[in-house]
């Protein structure tokens, strides 16, 4: 019997529900307490106890299942768990989404010059700062500019439209109206202050308002800016500075098209945010509570263990305590003995979707100007003239994300990882750079695979003419141009061929300031091993010739005009990408669709191949073309004009003169 007592009891751990546990308990009682208990009728008081135990087991199993299910994003159902999991993946669920629209911002400036040379005096152009508040009074909704409107500059992606606003008695303009577009979002701007005493690691504060859309700024009492980061481990932050001579005298030359320079700064003053399902918004700061610099708090070789430098380190005040690491600012600094002023926006929701032409009131416009040498009255007049309107309705405002939406968005967010890995990642990332850092209209990415004409290195070997002849040229064959095109592949680098627009929306090379901004912008996203070379894409300017026969009874000039318009549309620079070939039959087809065109025929002049559409290279730099010479005739294969081997794009520079169409007759 003693042996029996020592033997472990046979317990079934598999059952989880009431019926299973009840059955197991009955079996257990039958096996181990046959003399003490044998009444298993449901009405018996003993059975009541057994069933209560089974019930408790069932409830416990339910909660274990429930907790496990709630720990998995795909199955979680409780809002608070979905919020917690989403934020652990780095995704911030939205409690409320603001409406947004493009706002037309107007300002009048006095005229400069006289006679035929009257132009707007852009010196009176104000810089309306982001954060300026406007409102749709009729609906009681406020909106905030999220982009700067700088009336003193104009670029192809951010052009200023001018029109005559006022004329004098002799009809000469005295004032011009400037118009620019800027994005604005809905939401009330709230300012709140929080005082901090002694530093506390991972200190948190809760904002007073709910439905917080965005933390606009966080400034301490010394005027230092605290930055919003995705996680406290992130110490590199983008910051922008005006592209002026103070920043870089060389790059400042490009500040008309690249008004801002992007720079990465390393900061300890940072915070992350946390949203609760009830709309409560929290800010959490870092762990750095030490008053000294990190270098003084953590051990370094000069203070620890290096007897050559410090023979008395054990008796010194050196930082030997490993717990000192916990006080460093690796995860950011904890605010201490300061007051933080936090500016944030709240609101959002479906009510913010106000109709067109309703955002017309200025609430508080923050505008700046370089007033040196300007007339005070005119300056004030210009400031007061700033007005706004939304030509299109505000859209996008909606309430909180549903559980389902959050789950789907988290999956998508987690997969993207905010890393540039594929070619498309890089392209999307570069295109998403804000235009104030320079405009990028075309980008093409290849592996660094440069042409080398004999002076390159392949696997450590210098290519001399002898090596070239021996390795790449067939014996007894002469050296050809293509033999010289030895490629040197570099798997560790990417070549970005970029092009931008000038003010007339013609393709042009991107300036150095923009290139530097691209490099900075890609910095945190690119892979460690991806070196990035930013180069100029090649612009091949072309002209197009075609001939048609019209249908009888149609106005030939009108038909030709429409055909040229079709070709213009086909070559609209917005639709073209670097390395895109021209398919001649597509152009002929587009022309044939014009009403009144009977047939598209090969042009008669200078058309030895009898091609339906003739493409010719326009390269005269003095006439405003790119200067790149490209032999089109050798690039045509089976009715397709292929671009150059080097990344290049076709462009009709001056459509009004570069597209020539002829109507040869009608039938």
């Amino acid at each position, binding site marked *: 019997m003693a042996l029996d007592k020592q033997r472990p009891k046979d317990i079934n751990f598999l059952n989880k529900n009431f019926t299973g546990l009840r059955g197991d308990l009955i079996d257990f009682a039958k096996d181990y307490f046959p003399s*003490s208990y044998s009444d298993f009728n449901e009405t018996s008081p003993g059975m009541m106890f057994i069933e209560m135990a089974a019930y408790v087991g*069932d409830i416990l199993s339910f909660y274990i299942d429930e907790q496990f299910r709630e720990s998995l994003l795909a199955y979680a159902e409780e809002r608070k768990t979905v919020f917690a999991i989403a934020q652990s993946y780095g995704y911030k669920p939205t409690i409320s989404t603001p409406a947004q629209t493009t706002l037309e911002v107007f300002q009048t400036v006095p005229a400069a010059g006289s006679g035929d040379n009257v132009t707007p005096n852009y010196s009176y152009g104000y810089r309306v700062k982001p954060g300026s508040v406007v409102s749709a009074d009729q609906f009681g909704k406020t909106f905030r500019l999220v982009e700067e409107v700088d009336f003193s500059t104009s670029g192809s992606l951010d052009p200023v439209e001018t029109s005559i606003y006022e004329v004098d008695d002799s009809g000469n303009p005295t004032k011009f109206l400037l118009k620019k577009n800027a994005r604005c979002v809905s939401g009330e701007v709230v300012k709140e202050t929080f005082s901090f005493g002694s530093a506390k690691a991972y200190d948190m504060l809760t904002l007073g308002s709910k439905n917080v859309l965005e933390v606009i700024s966080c400034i301490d009492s010394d005027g230092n800016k605290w930055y919003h980061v995705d996680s406290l481990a992130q110490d590199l932050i983008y910051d922008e500075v005006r592209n002026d001579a103070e920043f870089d005298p060389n790059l400042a030359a490009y500040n008309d098209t690249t008004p801002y320079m992007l720079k990465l700064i390393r900061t300890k003053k940072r915070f992350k945010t946390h949203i609760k399902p009830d709309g409560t918004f929290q800010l959490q700061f870092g762990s750095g509570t030490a008053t000294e610099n990190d270098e003084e708090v953590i051990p370094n070789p000069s203070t620890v263990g290096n007897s050559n430098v410090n023979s008395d380190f054990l008796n010194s005040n050196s930082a030997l305590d490993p717990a000192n690491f916990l006080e460093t600012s690796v995860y950011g600094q904890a605010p201490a003995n300061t007051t933080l002023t936090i500016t944030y926006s709240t609101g959002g929701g479906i009510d913010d979707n106000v109709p067109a032409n309703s955002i017309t009131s200025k609430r508080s416009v923050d505008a700046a100007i370089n007033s040196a040498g300007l007339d005070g009255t005119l300056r004030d007049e210009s400031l007061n003239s700033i007005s706004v309107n939304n030509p299109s309705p505000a859209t996008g405002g909606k309430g909180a994300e549903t559980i389902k939406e959050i789950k789907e968005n988290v999956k998508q967010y987690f997969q993207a990882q905010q890393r540039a890995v594929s070619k498309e990642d890089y392209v999307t990332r570069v295109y998403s750079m804000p235009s104030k850092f320079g405009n990028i209209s075309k980008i093409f990415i290849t592996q660094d695979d440069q042409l080398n004409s004999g002076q390159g290195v392949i696997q450590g070997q210098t290519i001399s003419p002898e090596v070239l002849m021996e390795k790449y040229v067939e014996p007894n064959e002469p050296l050809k141009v293509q033999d010289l095109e030895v490629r040197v592949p570099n798997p560790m680098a990417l070549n970005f061929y970029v092009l931008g627009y000038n003010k007339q929306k013609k393709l042009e090379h991107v300036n150095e300031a923009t290139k530097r901004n691209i490099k900075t912008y890609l910095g945190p996203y690119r892979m460690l091993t991806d070196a990035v070379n930013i180069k100029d894409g090649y612009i091949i300017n072309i002209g197009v010739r075609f001939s048609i026969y019209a249908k009888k009874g149609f106005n030939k000039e009108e038909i030709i005009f429409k055909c040229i318009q079709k070709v213009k549309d086909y070559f609209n620079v917005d639709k073209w990408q670097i390395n895109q070939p021209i398919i001649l039959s597509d152009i002929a087809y587009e022309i044939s669709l014009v009403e009144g065109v009977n047939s598209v025929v090969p042009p008669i002049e200078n058309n030895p191949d009898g091609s339906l559409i003739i493409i010719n290279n326009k390269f005269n730099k003095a006439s405003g073309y790119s200067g790149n010479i490209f032999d089109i005739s050798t690039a045509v294969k089976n009715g397709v004009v292929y671009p150059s081997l080097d990344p290049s794009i076709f462009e009709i520079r001056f459509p009004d003169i570069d597209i020539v169409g002829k109507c040869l007759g009608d039938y």
Partner: protein
Amino acid sequence: MALENPRTTSVRSRDKDPDTFIGVSLPFVHSRHGWFKSSTTLLKQTKSNMKNLLLTVKGERVNQPELGCDLFNILFEPMDDKLSEKIDSSIRESVGLWLPHVVLKGINIDLQHDLNLVNISVTFTTRIEPNATETITLNLATVGE
């Protein structure tokens, strides 16, 4: 005197063995054989079970919503001629369903209109020992207090 294999022993043999227990009896009182006093014969245990069944309202027991008797619901019915019949049928229905080994010998229902009191006494036996009877008495005016 303990039975050699209590699990397979017949009910009659268990009834005769004073050291073998059937189940927990009502009311719950402390016993020298265990935490609760247990009954040693089927008939005594059945009495506890009967009491437990008749005093349980349907829906009261977790995961056994049909276990119990309608006596408590009938308590609020008008005290008319049909009341006795309703009490009788509810007792027979629940005993027939949950205690099939019980044979009801008689159900005596005494309605005291002046006191708003119903005295019920149920006399029963088991199929295994038909000659031995037991009686339980329920006083429905005080049973809920």
